């Protein structure tokens, strides 16, 4: 029975991670080998694709894409935390916004966000936010808010109210309390939420596709460029290498923090 369980686990893990594994294999083959040997095995492993990707910096500045992804995802996730943390506290402790703000934000999760993409594009074009990391970060923040608010509210509910009351007796204002007591206690939850928000923002595609052209192109969009990357056809090897570079940061984060991410996702999903 246990053997069967291991077998099922192996098949499931392989099948679910199949695209990444197959792309990883492809990224270590030379272009000529890709054309002649599509199999699992690499006849002559090479790092040429990775070297080639960096050598193409004038055309596909991969580091620039990765930096854009990193900066806008960090800013987007950070901003959503800054906005949602006080709101979550007000919601949990004072019941503020329970009637409309909370449902509104949570329900954002269920709305096809493309609805906002068109007017945002037009407004961004007017105010010079198109193709900027900040403009992208702002919308990534919107995308993240539902999840972040749910997770933070869930975490704050688990903090003991006695601490609040003790601080109040000492004459602390709401803001002192928030800053001095609640924030340090909620630190781990904030960190996990930040990581999750960062991963989601990093992986976003629709808004990155619509709102960036050059300066703020992210890794997900940049990787799709490689499918139209030369006169004679796709350079599959280079494309595979770029995709691997693009999935690396979130995947590493996921591996390092899988336990916390898993717990908070599970908690957030059921409570939200």
């Amino acid at each position, binding site marked *: 029975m246990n053997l069967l369980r291991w077998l099922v686990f192996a098949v499931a893990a392989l099948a679910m991670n199949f695209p990444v594994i197959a792309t990883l294999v492809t990224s270590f083959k030379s*272009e000529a080998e890709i054309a002649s040997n599509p199999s699992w095995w690499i006849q002559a492993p090479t790092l040429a694709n990775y070297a080639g990707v960096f050598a193409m910096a004038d055309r596909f500045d991969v580091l620039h894409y990765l930096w854009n992804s990193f900066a806008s995802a960090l800013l987007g996730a950070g901003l959503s935390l800054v906005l949602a943390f006080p709101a979550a506290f007000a919601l949990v402790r004072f019941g503020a916004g329970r009637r409309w703000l909370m449902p509104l934000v949570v329900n954002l999760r269920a709305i096809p966000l493309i609805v906002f993409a068109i007017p945002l594009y*037009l407004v961004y074009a*007017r105010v010079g936010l198109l193709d900027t990391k*900040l403009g992208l970060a702002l919308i990534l923040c919107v995308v993240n808010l539902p999840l972040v608010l749910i997770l933070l509210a869930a975490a704050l509910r688990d903090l003991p109210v006695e601490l609040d009351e003790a601080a109040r007796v000492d004459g602390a204002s709401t803001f002192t309390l928030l800053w001095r007591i609640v924030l340090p206690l909620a630190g781990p939850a904030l960190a996990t939420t930040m990581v999750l928000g960062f991963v989601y923002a990093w992986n976003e595609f629709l808004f990155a596709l619509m709102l960036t052209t050059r300066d703020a192109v992210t890794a997900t969009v940049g990787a799709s460029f490689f499918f*139209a990357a030369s*006169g*004679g056809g796709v350079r599959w090897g280079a494309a595979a290498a770029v995709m691997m570079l693009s999935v690396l940061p979130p995947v590493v984060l996921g591996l390092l923090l899988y336990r916390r991410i898993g717990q908070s996702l599970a908690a957030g999903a059921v409570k939200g």
Partner: protein
Amino acid sequence: MRTRRLLPGLALPALAAGLLLSSAAARAEVTVLGWPGGPEETALRAAADLYNGQDGLAEEDRVELIFFNRDGFWDKLQTDLAAGSGEFDLNLLATYAIGRYAPFMEPITLPDGAAELFGEKVLATMQFEGQQYGVPTDLSLHFMYFREDLIDQLLSDADWQARYQEIAQERLGKEMSPLPPEQWSWDDYQATALFFTKAVNPDSPTRYGTVLQMKNLLFNMMVWQSTARSFGGDWMNDQGEITVDSEAYRQGLELYKALYDAGASPKDSLSYEFAEANAAFGSGQVATMLQWNAAAADLNDPDKTPAVGGKVGTVAPPSGDAGRFTHIHGLGLGLNKAAQNKEGAVRFLEWLATPEAMQAYALAGGAPALSKDALQPVVEQRPDLAQLGDYAGQYGFVMTGATSAGALPVYELQAQHFTGYWAGQESLDEALSATAEGMEELLK
């Protein structure tokens, strides 16, 4: 009711937020938005380097190139232009999009030498309503690509010829013998494609006889259009009536469907575009392909495409009842109305329309259509440009209405319905009548 003032008013709060980071600061160079990912890009880079390397070039005349994704390129360019984006001074322009972008661009006056350099016919690919909107840098048309080694054997091997005749009799219902590609009609192409298809002829050396690009995508419609034209098809007649619901369009559409249904083109052809088709042909498993001229250099290069490099021949597309035709369109560069550095931009355009610039462009892999005299110094290295010029002159066509503002949506509409027919989701009648109906709206 006009709400002209409304949007700026609405945008005020957002403007306050945007103050920190406005990207609209005046730039000190000329920014050029080019066509990404192909030989046009490599060529433009070389030309820009040459220009920037000139002695005594002023700092504000320096050229900086930008490229974004091919996927959705025209959509994005359109929104940027309409929004009055000053992100670029010069932008890519194409014959099929000129009517749509002209309102956001400035007409230009080319130096006197331009007519001699390009010839009137080529300059016309960048004209709209009598005004010149750009410098024509590249000409795109279609070649029939074929495997020389396989076709040579077909023309000399008695067993193969017998089998070919059998297949033609059985599938096309007529007496046919193999012909060299430059003499092909669409029937010859079809018979050859069937002969080299494993599903039809188990002894075929290749898996497929041809590779069709049938993805729901406007460029694929341009490739297919040459077929309809050679049977006499057109978008509209002199009176402005839409004429796609015609025998010519039926023949062209049925040809593709017949080949696809017979298994003569890869199973996933309905998701194929430029890149996938080249990968299929480049694998050595395909005998013929109707494809853009831009693929020729890479496919015939043994280093880049080991399986077929050195064995690839190119001729003009096959002929129909009305003759032999290839879709042509020009790509070029024109002036954005919202350009922030117009003087510098115009100076670069004027330089681009000189023989020196265009020869450098050609040597770096671009595909300009140049007059015989202008081509002379580089024809050694780029014999294909002579072929390009010849074919454009002899077989080139533009559908009536294909430069209007509605041209791109027309191709999109055709892509939607024609791929629907090829996929068996719509009948031929449905596809054609829906296309005709939509085109009446778009080409009003």
